[in-house]
């Protein structure tokens, strides 16, 4: 960056920060992030569908399973009124969504027309609301009046788009779209370089996926817009080369000005990630099958729309970690010694509660019922039984547990100040220590995926492997790839099937969001996971999911059902939750 660019950007940042820190603004501003859980529940209750609330570029609208609402609102003079506007927007969109009032797929209209259409739709939505939600009319009238007051004060016409949003084209991904070749790097099972810089982008409402034109990329003609000091170029039909270098932070301000409407998929590994929260039509097609010479396991995948299995659709490669990190293990053990001792004590109390075996010829004490029987027999003139004692026996249960860790890139994020992958590793080490002490048949594995052709299942501890040999490997796993939960669960199930125990459990530690490069997400992913759980249940394998990321609340309940998942607010609770679950499993 040249000196004049540097100077200008410093000035720009200074003035922007002045604007952002406006006290008065903060007093009345409501941000979507703080309201999102509530609005999501609200939208799902109203529609009965798994609606996602996502940030809009401005006033927003709805399309597909997404409700776009403003990222922040400070239109009115206090937080309550701004929150009320959010609630009204979601309510309005829920009815609009149910009545299918939107632009047709592919239809493009100027924004003024889209807003007018949304405003006019109040004539249909209003009567519906007054019938089912009588107080929504009061809310609507109040908010409209506030917008009128703003218009009077600013001497401009009222902007009702905040109230009604705009119509959006209802885009649907064509499930029969052609198959694609996934980028070469994604299908390789080697560790990819990690992004160095990740920044969150501004809101994006629509993305068009383009196929890279290699010819035009080679013929690239350099163009520049000279009116800006910092530039980042919008796509204007001219192709240029990708280089993947990390200069993201230098250009953040310019990037925020970009219209991010177009997207290409590149096989170049990047070092900067400008992360937009958008999932509607970003995955274009499923991967082509690749011929694999290496030995792999093939599993079916469930297509919920067609209600059929895609036979041998996913390839799972089972492997061992390439390296081990015994120091990590030793450090975790010494740092958590007191936690481990507390948990040992907790479990010892449970284990000491022995099972009472009745009607014994010898035992700790008289069995009152047996003694009563003996009296009956004596009175009836029958030779009395000698089995009048009860004895306490150790309650040993036949259990096999497989701990399945999600080590996709999402575990590189932080929850309550802790890196998710670190929590997973620490918890597995400590819990593994306890399971080992109780001589439980257990295995620890991690998984990540890069398309259906490549789900990696890394066995950190095999069932029959001694714990002292395996525990060094747990520390070595690093975030990598995506989360194809269905294939991983099926493979974990196959591993458990080979065990003789009667009580078999998979404990999945994940954010629970099915996600892969090739359209394994949203409803498709959720239904595949649900299907895999049904398959496991048929084989008498139970699954319990644990998560510490707040976003898991949108996914886990849909897949695992009540009583079979737990979302923790604090990573420290994870270990306690695991031990409690173990106690419950033992008592079954």
């Amino acid at each position, binding site marked *: 960056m040249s000196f004049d660019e540097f100077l200008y950007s410093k000035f720009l940042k200074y003035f922007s920060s002045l604007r952002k820190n406006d006290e008065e603004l903060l007093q009345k501003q409501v941000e979507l992030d703080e309201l999102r859980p*509530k609005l999501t529940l609200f939208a*799902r209750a*109203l529609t*009965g569908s798994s609606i996602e609330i996502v940030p809009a570029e401005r006033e927003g609208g709805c399309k597909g399973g997404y409700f776009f609402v403003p990222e922040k609102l400070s239109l009115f003079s206090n937080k309550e009124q701004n929150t009320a506007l959010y609630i009204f927007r979601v309510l309005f969109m829920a009815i609009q969504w149910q009545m299918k009032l939107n632009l047709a797929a592919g239809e493009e209209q100027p924004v003024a027309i889209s807003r007018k259409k949304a405003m006019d739709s109040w004539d249909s939505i209003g009567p519906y609301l007054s019938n089912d939600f009588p*107080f*929504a009319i009061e809310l609507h009238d109040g908010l409209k009046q506030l917008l009128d007051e703003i218009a009077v004060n600013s001497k401009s016409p009222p902007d009702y788009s905040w109230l009604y949003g705009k119509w959006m084209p209802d885009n649907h991904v064509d499930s029969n779209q052609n198959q694609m070749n996934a980028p070469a790097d994604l299908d390789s099972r080697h560790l990819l370089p990690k992004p160095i810089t990740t920044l969150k982008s501004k809101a994006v409402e629509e993305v068009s996926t383009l196929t890279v034109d290699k010819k035009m990329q080679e013929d690239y003609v350099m163009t520049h817009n000279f009116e800006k000091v910092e530039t980042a170029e919008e796509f204007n039909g001219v192709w240029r080369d990708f280089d993947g270098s990390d200069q993201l932070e230098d250009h953040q301000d310019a990037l925020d000005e970009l219209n991010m409407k177009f997207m290409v998929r590149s096989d170049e590994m990047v070092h900067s990630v400008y992360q937009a929260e958008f999932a509607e039509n970003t995955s274009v097609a499923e991967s082509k099958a690749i011929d694999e010479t290496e030995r792999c396991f093939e599993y079916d995948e469930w297509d919920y729309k067609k209600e059929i299995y895609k036979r041998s659709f996913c390839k799972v490669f089972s492997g061992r970690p390439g390296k081990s990190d015994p120091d990590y293990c030793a450090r975790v053990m010494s740092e958590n010694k007191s936690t481990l001792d507390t948990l040992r004590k907790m479990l010892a109390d449970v284990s000491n509660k022995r099972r009472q075996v009745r009607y014994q010829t010898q035992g700790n004490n008289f069995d009152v019922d047996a003694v009563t*029987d003996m009296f009956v027999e004596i009175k009836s003139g029958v030779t009395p039984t000698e089995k009048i004692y009860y004895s306490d026996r150790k309650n040993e249960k036949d259990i096999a547990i497989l701990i399945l860790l999600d080590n996709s890139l999402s575990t590189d994020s932080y929850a309550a100040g802790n890196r998710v992958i670190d929590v997973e590793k620490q918890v597995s080490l400590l819990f593994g220590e306890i399971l080992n002490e109780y001589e439980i048949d257990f295995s620890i594995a991690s998984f990540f995926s890069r398309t259906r052709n490549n789900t990696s299942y890394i066995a950190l501890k095999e069932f029959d492997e001694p714990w002292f040999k395996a525990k060094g490997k747990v520390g070595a796993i690093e975030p990598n790839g995506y989360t194809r939960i269905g294939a991983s669960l099926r493979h974990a199930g196959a591993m458990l099937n080979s065990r003789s125990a009667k009580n078999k459990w998979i404990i999945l530690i994940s954010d629970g969001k099915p996600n892969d490069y090739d359209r394994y997400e949203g409803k498709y992913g959720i239904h595949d996971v649900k299907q895999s759980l049904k398959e496991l249940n048929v084989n008498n394998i139970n699954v319990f999911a644990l998560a510490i990321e707040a976003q898991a*609340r949108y996914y886990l309940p849909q897949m695992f059902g009540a*009583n079979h998942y737990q979302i923790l607010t604090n990573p420290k609770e994870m270990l306690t939750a695991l031990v409690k679950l173990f106690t419950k499993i033992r008592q079954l």
Partner: protein
Amino acid sequence: MSIKEPFYLASGKEIEVFEHASINKLPVLLKGPTGTGKTRFIEYMAYKLNRHCITISCHEETSATDLIGRFIIKGAETIWLDGPLTTAVRNGAIIYLDEVAEARPDVIVAIHSLTDFRRELYLDKLAEKVIAHPDFLLVASFNPGYQRGFKELKPSTRQRFVAIPFNFPRPEAEIQILVAESGVPDEVAKRLVAIGNKIRNLNEVGLAETVSTRLLVDAAKLIQSGLPRRLAVRSAVVEPLSDDPQVIDALTDLCNLMI
């Protein structure tokens, strides 16, 4: 048997199925979520068939001894005391084992001989075989979960019963139930049922249990006795469902827009 006829509104052909099961002396399994009228249905059928009904709410400590009976010592004497199941078998009552999957496995073993053609109960402590009275009827209920694991009814046990499914009633029927049970005006009942159905949309989003007709009846009763509507709904419907402040907040906002 109840002196007064319990209110029950049929949502399907469950009354006919039960009557025929009773004629043919077949055990009945009522399956469905909490608060969908299973217990009320049994009370109603007991009244209709003019039979005594003994209800046992099963829990993880419920054992076969609790149902069959036990000896007690009185002075130097040992006296046999029939359990509720034995009483029902001898006297020809309906025995209703509520949430039977929660009970210990020996309970299931104890009822096996009563669920097939034998219709007999063996009291091992008395070495006595009790042949069931012709009017004896075994009824059990359970709440099927989405995933198996912690508490379940084995398929081999389920096969021994005639099963009647229960679910939340249609809105019109549920409105009628609310009006009959609480005396609230139609308009209030309609609003409460609409709230119930919206919240039921959330059953896959983390609520362990959803709004039952029973909860709606409770809210209606509170409203009828003079509690402000929104407070009644919050206390009887929203708060019992969740302890999560965000869920309570979202549901309260939803209800406040509707009532």
